[in-house]
């Protein structure tokens, strides 16, 4: 294992603990948006797929990269939009009751 990989392990473990500690505080009310949201974030594999699609090292890798960028960008764009669409619906009991009706 290289030095970089060990550093990666440190990063992974620390991030997992930060994630665990933070996400435990997310109320069940928001569990579905949380899922859509983390899904959008995990679309970060876009970073890897962009390089694969743009490096043009071989037709095979470019093709796979192309498909991967497609999948990842669906998740990133769609994931953020749908999270926001859901969050917009959550409202407190308040005066906006009548205007909330369509």
């Amino acid at each position, binding site marked *: 294992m290289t030095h970089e990989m060990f550093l990666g392990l440190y990063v992974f473990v620390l991030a997992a603990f930060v994630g665990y500690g933070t*996400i435990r505080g997310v109320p069940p009310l928001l569990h579905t948006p949380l899922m859509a949201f983390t899904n*959008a974030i995990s679309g970060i594999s876009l970073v890897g797929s962009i390089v694969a699609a743009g490096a043009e090292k071989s037709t095979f890798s470019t093709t796979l990269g192309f498909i991967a960028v497609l999948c990842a960008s669906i998740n990133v764009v*769609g994931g953020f939009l749908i999270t926001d669409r859901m969050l917009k619906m959550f409202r407190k009991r308040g005066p906006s009751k009548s205007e909330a009706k369509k």
Partner: protein
Amino acid sequence: MNIYAEILYFVASVLFILGIRGLTSAETARRGVIYAEIGMAAAVAGTFLHTDITTYRWILISAGIGSAIGIAMSALIPMTKMPERIALSHAFGGLAAALVGVSEYSLYMAGLNHHELSRGTMGALGFEVLFGGLTFTGSLMAFGKLQGFIPSRNITYPYQNQSNIAMFGAAVLILVALTIWPAAQPLFYLMFFVAMALGVLMVIPIGGADMPVVISLLNSYAGLAASATGFALENNVLIIAGALDGASGFILSVVMSRAMNRSFANVLFGAFGQGDGTGAAQIGASGAEVREASVGDAAMLLSSGTKVIVCPGYGMAVAQAQHAVQKMAELLEKEGVEVKYAIHPVAGRMPGHMNVLLAEANVPYDALKELEEINDEFAQADVALIVGANDVVNPAAKTNPNSPIYGMPVLNADLAKTCIVLKRSMNPGFAGIENELFTMPNTVLVFGDAKDTIEKINEALG
């Protein structure tokens, strides 16, 4: 690596964490999404600086198509289909990670990467492809089950668990072998294949009611696959984002399993309700009488008290009854009846499913109560209205040690003065377990489509 790219990746990592922190309350959640969006833009911008990229053509075409699909999907999908949407996006996430892994590996094998394939990198690539492949097919299966392409009951065959465990063991052994002989290409592709087959076989035996756990677990796997990509590419923002996703899926799986009083292992290998043939018996078989009520009776019961607690379940999603329920609550509140909602963590097909549906119908979120929060209030409630829920209100979980769901935390709907159950038919729930609540002396049933029934109740109330 380019110093600007490094800075952008660092900023992205911090923004992702801040974004998730925003989701810890409904007030700050939307701001959190904006943080994460900026973070993602920064990460993509950083990637565009990568020196390996020779052309942006394919990237832009593909990202353009992907974004268009993403926009269309998120705008058009109804809230009731959210579990399907999430399952599908896990499949995309898994596939993207797996394909990046395969692509990297092929470049190493063709000698087109800058350096030799080290054992550590091989391990990361293998892990990425293993979890990516498994997540891809597993999520497609979950999607198929939710959508009804594949029967959502648990499909079992002899030695199912044993063969699945053996396959998983085989995949791990191949991974270990690959770290010793990284150049053994057939092994690599064999592992990819085994992982994809395993995804299918692992989800096949899992029934519809267990979907919340499965979806959460697949969420976690998708995150781990993304993290592994980060190890393979030595990119920290991937590691961090993947770890956050993995942690989130893990927490949700734990919450969901706990809400069913079962372990991960039991959900994955337990094929609910098996070996309990008698449990699937019709309610009439136990000899207890069911009391049926008319819509008018139900409306009277609801409006004559002072406190109603609504217990929604998957049936509400199927019937799309959430808007009718909200309308009913409004009418009742006009008559001075307090209406609250009791949300069981596993009601529906994914974590938080009921909350999203009711929020869509404009129910204020402070009326949505979690199980622990509301369970003591049922005793003071005049009516518990069960809308398409079954196992989550089954008192057998509290009283009958022989019941397969014994020990599972349930809503105390049985303690309300009267229980009104809206039910399509007399069939037992997904778990195939008899529900004693339906035959209790203070329970009445109203048969029919939940949306239809509630709309009729609303007419009677209005």
